[in-house]
C-alpha cells in the first residue's frame, strides 16, 4: 500500500507493486523469487504544488473536480492487474515525481526516460497529471509515450496533439457533447449560456461548438462575475442573470464557486447544467452498473476516498500501463515503438460496460460519459437513439473527419 504522507512529502517515491514472478501457478507465486521477474517502471508526473487539492476546493466536492491524490488511483489500477502481471513474470514499479514547473518537468522526463538512464529505473511509459501548459514540453522531452491522465483541454487533442501523446481523461469537448446529447434527448433545446466575464475562452468555444453541432438554440450568452458590488449586480445576481425564456441554463465555471450557487436560484424553474447542476463526468462513486461500486470501494479501502471522476483517468491509466507491461513480458524491453504499438491496439475494460480503445486521430480514450447531479447517476451517454456510422462513442469529442492533428499516430 502507498504511504500517502511519504508521497506528499517526498519528491520521489518508488512503489513496488507486489507482483511476483514468472510463476505459472499462484501456489508458486505466493513465495516469489525476486530474481526471476522483469522489473519495469511507470513514471507519474504530478505538480509539486497542487491547487486542485486545496482544502476549500476539495470541500466544494464538485463531481468533475479532483478529489485527492491521483497517485492513489494509478496505484490501484496497477494493483488490479497484479495477477496477470505475475503470470507474465513482470514487476511494475510506480515512480511518482513531483515537479514545480514545466521546464523542470521536461528536464526530469528527459533525464529519466533517455536511453542513457540506468535501465532499472527507466520507465516504459510516462503518465502526466500536469497542467496543459506543461504538457507539450514534457511530450517533446520524453523518449517514451505519454498518457495525459488529468488535463481535459481540447488543444492537446486538436492542433497541439503529438503522436506519442494519449489521453485517458475525457476532453472538455466530450463533456460538452455528452450534455448536449442529453439536452437534445429531452428536447430542452433553448439554452441560456452563462459564461465568465474573464477567462475560459477555450471552454466557452467548446460549449458553443457543442450547442451548434447538436442543433441547440443559444437563447443568449451572458457574462457572470463573482461580486457583491451592487453596481455589478447584473453580472452577479442569479435571478437577474437568468431572465428570459429558456429550457435550461448552461453555466461555464471552471472553478465552481459561482456555478455551485446557481441551481434553484434561477428566475425560471429550469435546470442548470454544465459545470454545476447536471454535469458530465468520467466516473461517479454513485455509478452502480458494470461492477462500478467494487472499483469505487477498492479506492475507498486503499486511500480513504471513493473513486472520483478525475481518479478514473488515473485508475484506467494504471490498468493500461499494467496491460502494456504484461505484453512486454519477461524481456522487460523498453522499446518505445512497442509501447506505442500496444497503445494503438489496446482494448481495456474501464467498468463502463464496453471495451475502451484509443482513437488513432486524437489519441483520446473513447468512453461513455456519465451525467450526474452529484447525487445520482442520471444518464449514461451516448444513450439510446444516438447513432454513428462506426462507433457510437465517437459522437463524443473529435471525430475522424475533423482530424487536425499535424502528425499521424500510425
Amino acid at each position, binding site marked *: 500500500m502507498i504511504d500517502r504522507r511519504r508521497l506528499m512529502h517526498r519528491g520521489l517515491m518508488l512503489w513496488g507493486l507486489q507482483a511476483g514472478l514468472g510463476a*505459472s*501457478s*499462484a*501456489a508458486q507465486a505466493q513465495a516469489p523469487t525476486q530474481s526471476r521477474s522483469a522489473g519495469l517502471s511507470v513514471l507519474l508526473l504530478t505538480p509539486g504544488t497542487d491547487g486542485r487539492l486545496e482544502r476549500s476546493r476539495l470541500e466544494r466536492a464538485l463531481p468533475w473536480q479532483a478529489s485527492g491524490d491521483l497517485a492513489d488511483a494509478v496505484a490501484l489500477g496497477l*494493483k*488490479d*492487474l*497484479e*495477477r*496477470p502481471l*505475475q*503470470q507474465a513474470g513482470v514487476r511494475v514499479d510506480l515512480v511518482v515525481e513531483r515537479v514545480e514547473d514545466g521546464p523542470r518537468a521536461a528536464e526530469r522526463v528527459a533525464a529519466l526516460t533517455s536511453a542513457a538512464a540506468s535501465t532499472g529505473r527507466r520507465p516504459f511509459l510516462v503518465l502526466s497529471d500536469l497542467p496543459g501548459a506543461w504538457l507539450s514540453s514534457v511530450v517533446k522531452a520524453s523518449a517514451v509515450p505519454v498518457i495525459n491522465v488529468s488535463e481535459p483541454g481540447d488543444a492537446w487533442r486538436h492542433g497541439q496533439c503529438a503522436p506519442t501523446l494519449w489521453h485517458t481523461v475525457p476532453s472538455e469537448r466530450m463533456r460538452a457533447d455528452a450534455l448536449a446529447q442529453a439536452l437534445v434527448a429531452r428536447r430542452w433545446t433553448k439554452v441560456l449560456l452563462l459564461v465568465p466575464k474573464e477567462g475560459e475562452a477555450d471552454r466557452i468555444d467548446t460549449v458553443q461548438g457543442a450547442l451548434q453541432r447538436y442543433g441547440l438554440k443559444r437563447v443568449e450568452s451572458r457574462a457572470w462575475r463573482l461580486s457583491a458590488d451592487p453596481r455589478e449586480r447584473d453580472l452577479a445576481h442569479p435571478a437577474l442573470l437568468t431572465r428570459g425564456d429558456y429550457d435550461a441554463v448552461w453555466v461555464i465555471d471552471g472553478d465552481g464557486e459561482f456555478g455551485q450557487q446557481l441551481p434553484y436560484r434561477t428566475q425560471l424553474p429550469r435546470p442548470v447544467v454544465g459545470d454545476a447542476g447536471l454535469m458530465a463526468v468520467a466516473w461517479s462513486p454513485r455509478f452502480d452498473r458494470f*461492477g462500478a461500486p*467494487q472499483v469505487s*470501494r*477498492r479506492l475507498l479501502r486503499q486511500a480513504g476516498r471513493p473513486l472520483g471522476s478525475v481518479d478514473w483517468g488515473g485508475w484506467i491509466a494504471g490498468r493500461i500501463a499494467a496491460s502494456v507491461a504484461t505484453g512486454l513480458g519477461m524481456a522487460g524491453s523498453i522499446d518505445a515503438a512497442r509501447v506505442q504499438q500496444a497503445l494503438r491496439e489496446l*482494448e481495456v*475494460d474501464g467498468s463502463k*460496460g*464496453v*471495451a475502451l480503445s484509443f482513437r488513432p486521430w486524437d489519441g483520446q480514450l473513447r468512453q461513455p460519459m456519465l451525467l450526474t447531479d452529484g447525487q445520482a447517476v442520471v444518464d449514461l451517454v451516448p444513450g439510446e437513439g444516438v447513432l454513428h456510422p462506426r*462507433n*457510437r462513442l465517437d459522437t463524443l469529442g473529435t471525430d475522424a473527419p475533423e482530424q487536425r492533428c499535424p502528425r499521424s499516430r500510425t
Partner: protein
Amino acid sequence: MTRSSPVDVTPSPRRRSHRLSVGLGLFLSVGICASVAQGQTPPLPTLQGVVLVSSEKDHALTVIDLASTSVVGSIPTCKRPRHLQRLGARQVVVACGDSNLADVIDLDRKASVRRFPLGESPEIFDVSADGKTLYVSNEEDAKVSAIEVSTGKLMASIRVGEEPEGLLLSRDGKRIYVASEVANQVQVIDVASRKVIQDIPVGKRPRRFVQSPDGREVWVSHELDASVSVIDTQRLAVTGTVRFELKGARRSDITPVGMVMSPDGKTVFVGLGQANHVAFVDTASRSVRATVLVGKRAWGVSLDRKAATLAVVNGLSDDLTFVDVASARALKSVRVGRVPHSALFIEEAP
C-alpha cells in the same frame, strides 16, 4: 412499492400492459409482485412446477407457475438476492450481496428457514455434491470462501484475482473455476490443497461458467469480448472460442454473461446481454445455431430438466422470457421483480 399489495394475477386494465418483446402482437398483464409484508400474502401454491427468480432490488424471490407461466407469489429473502441453487432435495440457497448472507429457503415451508454468513459481497456460488460445502466468490475481497453448510463456518478463504464473479465446482468436486472480471483470468483452485494451481488468461471481463456432462470442458463467457471460450479441463488452457455476431448489433453491444448447457452437452445457451438476445451454441461445431430476441440485457439463463424450455432473465426490463428450445422462439415474457438476476426451475413433486 410503498403500499403492500396482495398478489394478483388477474389481468386488469388498470395495470400496465407489458408488450412481448418477440413482437407476436400479444399483450399480457401480470400482477405486480412486490416484496409484500408477510401475513398479507395469499398462500403460495406447492412449490413444484415453478420457477424462482431472484431480483436484486426486491429482496424477494418471485414465484412463476410453469403451467400458466404467470407470477403466483413471492418469497421474502435477504437483501440483494443474486445467485440461487438447489441444496439437497427440498431446499434452495440464495446468496445475498448486500446482506452478505446465504438464505436457506425450504420448499415445503415456502419460507426462509436459516441464514448463514457468506463473507463480503457474495456473488456466484456452488455447492458440493454431498451438500456439505458451499464455495462462493466474494467480489469485494477478491476471495473464494469455502463454507460449511451445516454450521455456516468459514473453512477456508482463497485469494484470487480482483472482482471474482463466476464460480464453478467441477463435477468430480476436485477443482473450482473462478472468473476474475478485472484480471481477465480464470483461476483454477485445487479443492484438496485449497490453492490456486493455474491462472488461465481469457477474454475481457470473464463472467460465468458451464461444464460439459463428461467434465472435459468448462465454458466461460466474456462480457466485453462478444465471445465465450472453451477451457480444456485436462490441459487447463483455452482450446477454442466462439465469437458472436448479430445482424444489426455491433460487437460492443454483444455482452455475454449467463450460460446454461443442455444435459446432453450438445447445446450451450448464452445470454447476449445488451444485444437482447439469447444464442444457441452447438458444442460439437462450436457455432451459433440460433439467436432469439428476448428482453433488455439478457442476463441469467436457466433450462428445465427436459431441455424444452429456457428461462432468460432480462436485467434491464425487469422481466423473464420463456423460450421454446425446439422451435427457438420466445413464448412469453413475464414481469418479475426489480433488476432480476437468476432463475431456478423447481419441477419435481415434493
